[in-house]
């Protein structure tokens, strides 16, 4: 069994007190804390190896290049890729998805369709919407009442025109774990390319991109104990080789003349400019850390925490939580509201001369703000998923999200803090 108390000792930030209270950090879907092993790896790189990669023929540059490429291999293996060249380093999931949308988008034509789902993060919506200028249509597969994806609707919206299917592995709001292997089969049978947003899955469960058989897979380092500013895009080699580059500059070229340029090999073709070597090394250390604890163990631990949250939530009056109740298809993301506060709609407001909102309802920002007073960090807002908020008919939600260093005791404190906050607000 994973021991969160021992794990916490590796995270310097948990030694900090805020207003005399220990930090209860429950915003792991936004970003995660960093163990000292990761911080040390970055420090070690800058103190002992810093130099530019793929350029110098001197010792430091050779070592730096070697560290960068070893990090690539390590992280690539961690997600089940068989070939390190399949992993392009990017800043984060957002950049990975922009890269894919922009590069693949060049070969799309008017009338082509992209199929997404209603539970996507803005980073898996907006880059595709950029292609609307070309006449490309963006479709959304619906979600069911219980927060799962409607496979029927997904199947009904995929057709001959659907060139790309892009879905999130885990919803950052609902915690829903999509059956990405099954969706991939449907996409491939249809002849569509298949992209998976793994931002919320790679940190929390074992991932094997080869088994999923996705064409592309995007993820962020900072959500998996790694530093901010580094992430990955996995792509099948033959696809990456045939795609046009995303950004131009140094390192991505093979040769440049006044008339034009030819491209470097994959993955360098997609890594223009000096890369983020130190953070790649840091992310590699994070991967070592996660591997040592075991991704199966982490998943089990988070299943326990979400199970516990779903049991304890009944004690909070007026609480409504979102997402599937079955922990087998649910990650450690817990979105909720206290009472119903529907989204603002001017026409409705005018018609009804003021939409009546229950006095017991508390806006999620107020919930997050009040609970902050107890030293508990949760998120409130639309979580960069505004179409999903519309679907749920809420303006925003509050969200607690768990990771390997969280405990059942913290879930208790969260609910106690929530209860106190509600009492104070209603005073």
């Amino acid at each position: 069994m994973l021991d969160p108390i021992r794990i916490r000792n590796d995270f310097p930030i948990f030694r900090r007190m805020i207003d005399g209270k220990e930090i209860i950090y429950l915003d792991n879907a936004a970003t995660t804390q960093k163990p000292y092993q990761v911080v040390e790896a970055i420090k070690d790189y800058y103190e002992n190896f810093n130099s530019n990669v793929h350029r110098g023929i001197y010792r430091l540059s050779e070592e730096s290049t070697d560290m960068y490429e070893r990090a690539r291999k390590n992280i690539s293996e961690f997600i089940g890729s068989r070939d390190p060249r399949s992993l392009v380093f990017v800043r984060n999931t957002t950049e990975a998805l922009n890269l894919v949308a922009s590069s693949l988008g060049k070969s799309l034509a008017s009338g082509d369709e992209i199929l997404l789902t209603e539970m996507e993060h803005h980073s898996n919506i907006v880059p595709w919407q950029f292609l609307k200028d070309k006449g490309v249509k963006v479709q959304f597969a619906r979600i069911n009442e219980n927060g799962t994806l409607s496979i029927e609707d997904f199947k009904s919206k995929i057709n001959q025109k659907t060139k790309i299917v892009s879905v999130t592995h885990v919803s950052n709001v609902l915690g829903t774990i999509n059956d990405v292997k099954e969706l991939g089969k449907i996409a491939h049978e249809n002849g569509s390319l298949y992209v998976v947003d793994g931002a919320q899955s790679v940190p929390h469960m074992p991932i094997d991109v080869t088994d999923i058989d996705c064409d592309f897979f995007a993820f962020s380092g900072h959500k998996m104990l790694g530093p901010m500013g580094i992430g990955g895009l996995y792509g099948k080699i033959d696809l990456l080789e045939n795609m046009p580059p995303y950004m131009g500059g140094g390192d991505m070229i093979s040769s440049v003349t006044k008339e034009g340029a030819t491209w470097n090999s994959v993955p360098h073709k997609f890594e223009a400019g000096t890369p983020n070597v130190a953070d790649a090394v840091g992310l590699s250390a994070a991967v070592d850390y996660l591997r040592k604890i075991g991704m199966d163990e982490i998943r089990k631990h988070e299943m326990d925490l979400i199970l516990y949250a779903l049991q304890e939530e009944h004690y909070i009056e007026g609480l409504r939580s979102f997402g599937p109740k079955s922990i087998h298809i649910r990650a450690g993301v817990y979105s909720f509201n206290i009472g119903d506060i529907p989204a603002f709609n001017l026409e409705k407001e005018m018609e009804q001369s003021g939409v009546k909102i229950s006095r017991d309802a508390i806006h999620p920002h107020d919930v997050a703000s009040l609970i902050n007073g107890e030293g508990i960090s949760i998120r409130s807002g639309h979580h960069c998923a505004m179409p999903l908020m519309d679907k749920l008919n809420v303006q925003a939600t509050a969200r607690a999200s768990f990771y390997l260093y969280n405990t059942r005791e913290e879930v208790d404190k969260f609910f106690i803090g929530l209860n106190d906050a509600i009492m104070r607000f209603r005073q």
Partner: protein
Amino acid sequence: MSEDLAYEVLMDHYRNPHNYGSVKDFTHGITEYNPICGDTVHIEMHISNGIIDEIKFMGRGCSISQASASILTETVKGMPAAEAAAITDQDYLLKLGVSLGPAREKCALLSLNAMRKSLSAGGSSDGQ
């Protein structure tokens, strides 16, 4: 005013907003929302001879964003538009009298920003 009292005033405005609704024949109208959190305020004003003689709001959001909109309508009603437009963020936060973190200051300033924007845009096409 003590901070506790200021907070109570705020909560009272949240629970019982003043000047909530629509202004008949408004000359200035605007809907603003905070893209970070989705808090929304819609403000309608009737301005004649440079005076804001009527102002109402509608909206949805956290207690701070909605209470501060209610307080704003009270503050600027009857005021010359030029004077209302000159209210600074600092002035207004001081008037609210509660210390807010930087994130929630944005909630408190949503309605003020909306009003200023509407005033500087001149008469709005949203109006009659």
